[in-house]
């Protein structure tokens, strides 16, 4: 029976061999949960959306802004951005794209019901939308807002006539999954696969494949196995454990790029007296929180052998770092050193801070969120323990972990952060004081707070001179890093694997898209 099945399979394969070159099957590790591009702000959804829809401002694989549905954008006044739109663009159903559709899209975003993570933050700075003519639109803001074009790289444009009153369900069913993107959707099996067909009217570069099957295989080993078995042509999120083997296998090739996701340790800055998971060596609580002492934070940072973690735990798929963004990306501090591993100096710093015999700490982290997350914290546990800080390690599922981290229940914990290529992004969200009114520090789970840094950030956020603004940001980044607000560990490398005959352009933003795949030899 097996043989018959195999024989039939072979026969089928040769019969469709001619068509094969036109077909592409991809497998991604994270499920797409919705085809409504404004329902849930989630990387896999954005990846799927960017195959079907397009944005005013697109980004290239290094996360630099590129013309999309807008050909150009300028700040015509400090508080007014003007976008010149691309003429002659049509939606999949033949309707023409105009400035009015942009206005419709911006208005729809805050009204999507039941959204667990909406795109509202990106449009909130816009106070007024002015349609000048069908191909010109002006967006007004209350204060000068240099980040507006970058915010718009998250917004997929819909058609007013088609999508007026559209519900998420009608997107998911495929009925209204209609955009201006390189592919049109032909079938959607929720959580399993999306089938796509090339849009021959696409305004940008023509995709190489006429038919695409976009499958979701969440189990890492199963995804690699599917590639090796030849069931899929391209996979993303290649597990680090399989990289060495795939590199040796001449049936597949790997495509890699340094990404935008920083893995770092967050520390309890909130409590002055006693942190919940820090005790002295006999297990008694300490009267004050040692993490408030800069020397202790420095010691913990240099007690970590980052290159060892990159080499042994990440198996080379990361870049050790002492800052937020990778080289070649906006706001990277040139020449800023990776903190050198020095256990002896760490011990001396601890002694200076009044802990000659160290103390005990529990390091928390998720075990199902970032590549090798639980392994990284164990490795750090080893290193800290050798430097004199006896470390227990506790890993939890993300669903439990993130809630507890958000309630400041931990003393030291591992997190990751996918950056926008702009220093203000980590500074605003991770470093700035937690403040509901300004909306700053929303993900600052360690509650670091430095008012001077906040003032600098406020000044930079209205600076419309790109070069001067970047210099301002670099200074603020230095300020945060010198003070060890967080302990950066490494920046992940994004890895894709393709079967022979296929190649994918790797993207820093981790998105896996069919238009990036080309035939190769």
């Amino acid at each position, binding site marked *: 029976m097996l043989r018959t099945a195999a024989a039939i399979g072979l026969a089928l394969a040769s019969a469709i061999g001619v068509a094969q070159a036109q077909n592409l099957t991809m497998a991604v590790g994270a499920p797409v949960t919705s085809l409504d591009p404004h329902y849930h702000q989630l990387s896999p959804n954005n990846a799927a959306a960017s195959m079907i829809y397009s944005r005013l401002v697109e980004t290239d694989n290094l996360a630099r802004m590129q013309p999309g549905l807008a050909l150009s954008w300028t700040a015509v006044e400090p508080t007014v951005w003007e976008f010149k739109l691309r003429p002659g663009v049509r939606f999949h159903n033949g309707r023409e794209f105009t400035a009015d559709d942009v206005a419709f899209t911006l208005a729809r975003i805050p009204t999507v019901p039941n959204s667990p993570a909406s795109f509202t933050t990106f449009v909130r700075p816009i106070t007024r939308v002015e349609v000048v003519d069908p191909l010109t639109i002006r967006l007004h803001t209350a204060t000068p807002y240099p980040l507006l074009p970058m915010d718009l790289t998250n917004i997929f444009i819909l058609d007013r006539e088609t999508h007026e009153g559209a519900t998420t369900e009608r997107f998911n069913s495929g009925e209204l999954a209609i955009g201006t993107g390189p592919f049109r959707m032909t079938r959607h099996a929720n959580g399993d696969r999306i089938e796509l067909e090339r849009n021959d009217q696409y305004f940008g570069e023509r995709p190489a494949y006429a038919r695409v099957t976009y499958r979701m295989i969440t189990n890492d080993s199963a995804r690699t196995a599917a590639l090796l078995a030849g069931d899929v042509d391209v996979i993303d999120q290649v597990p680090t454990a399989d990289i060495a083997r795939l590199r040796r296998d001449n049936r597949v090739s790997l495509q890699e790029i340094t990404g935008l996701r920083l893995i770092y340790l967050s520390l309890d800055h909130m409590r002055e007296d006693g942190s919940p998971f820090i005790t002295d060596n006999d297990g008694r609580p300490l009267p004050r929180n040692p993490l408030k002492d800069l020397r202790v934070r420095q010691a913990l940072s240099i007690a970590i052998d980052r290159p060892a973690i990159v080499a042994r735990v990440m198996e080379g798929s990361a870049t050790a770092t002492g800052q937020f963004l990778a080289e070649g990306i906006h706001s990277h501090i040139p020449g800023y050193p990776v903190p050198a591993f020095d256990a002896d100096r760490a011990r001396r710093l601890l002694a200076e801070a009044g802990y000659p015999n160290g103390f005990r700490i529990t390091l928390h982290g998720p*075990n199902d969120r970032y590549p090798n997350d639980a392994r990284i914290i164990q490795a750090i546990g*080893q290193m800290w323990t050798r430097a004199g800080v006896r470390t*227990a*390690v506790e890993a939890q599922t993300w669903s439990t972990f993130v809630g507890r981290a958000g309630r400041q229940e931990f003393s030291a914990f591992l997190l990751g952060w996918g950056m926008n290529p702009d220093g203000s992004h980590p500074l605003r969200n991770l470093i700035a004081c937690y403040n509901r009114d300004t909306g700053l520090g929303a993900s600052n789970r360690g509650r670091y707070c430095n008012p001077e840094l906040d003032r600098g950030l406020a000044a930079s956020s209205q600076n419309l001179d790109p070069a001067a603004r970047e210099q301002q940001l670099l200074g603020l980044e230095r300020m945060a890093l010198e003070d060890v607000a967080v302990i950066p560990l490494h920046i992940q490398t994004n890895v894709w694997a393709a079967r022979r005959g296929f190649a994918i352009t790797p993207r820093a933003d981790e998105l896996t898209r069919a238009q990036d795949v080309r035939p190769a030899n």
Partner: protein
Amino acid sequence: MSATTAPRVETPFQRFVSEFFASKLAVVGLVVISAIILVAVLAPWIAPQDPYDLAVLDIMDGRLEPGSQGGSGITYWLGTDDQGRDMLSGIMYGLRISLLVGVGSAVLAAAVGATLGLLAAYVGGKTDTVIMRLVDLQLSFPAILAALMILAFLGKGIMNVVFAIVVVEWAYYARTVRGNALVERQREYIEAARCLALPPRRILFGHLLPNCLPPLIVVATMQIARAIALEATLSFLGLGVPITEPSLGLLISNGYEYMLSGKYWISFYPGIALLVTIVAINLVGDQLRDVLNPRLKK
């Protein structure tokens, strides 16, 4: 009475022992289990390394092949895992955890289940209905999902795993014991005990329970194996025991990710250890069932 002249009279226990030892396989199983228990108990003294002490692990020794020499001069006969943990030591310590989870949960679940099952059978009426509806509720809830939810709520931990398994498995015991006790309750000796006005506690535990033990033991041996396998699956799903104190199941699921890359030893050897343990328990359990089952007596 002199032993030489008296006819040989076997006590029930002696008969049980001789019948049990009639099967070579079961004897092998018993020997293997004893050896495994010995290794598990003595692990801290015989293991080359304390695999739970982060200070002695070194990631630079991670994923070494079996037989490799570590940085500190130690030889890793079965290789190391990703943290540089000696697999041999890891397996010895892992056996402790797995057995603790298996036996601990089986004993506790049996205690809870048997007590409730006896009560249900003996008291009857409302008590019986309530307990048996609880049993139905429990049995209608898939074990794996219930354990998942409980652990998601309680967090990781060996005791939490034991608790979760007890919660999902006591009902099997309760049902088994109740069924048996209902039959036994009709027997003359219980009638007699009641006529003597013995306290219910004594009737329950002194008379009824011993006669329900055989099926209970059979269920328990099966459930030990099941509990160990369940714990392995929970670890695979990211819950279960803490990552720094891996059980056999967690060792296997850690190594699972390395199977495709040819680093088989990380999950292969713990897998063998788990397999041998469970097979041995089942060999003994099977024989127990055959020996204790009165309906198979010829």
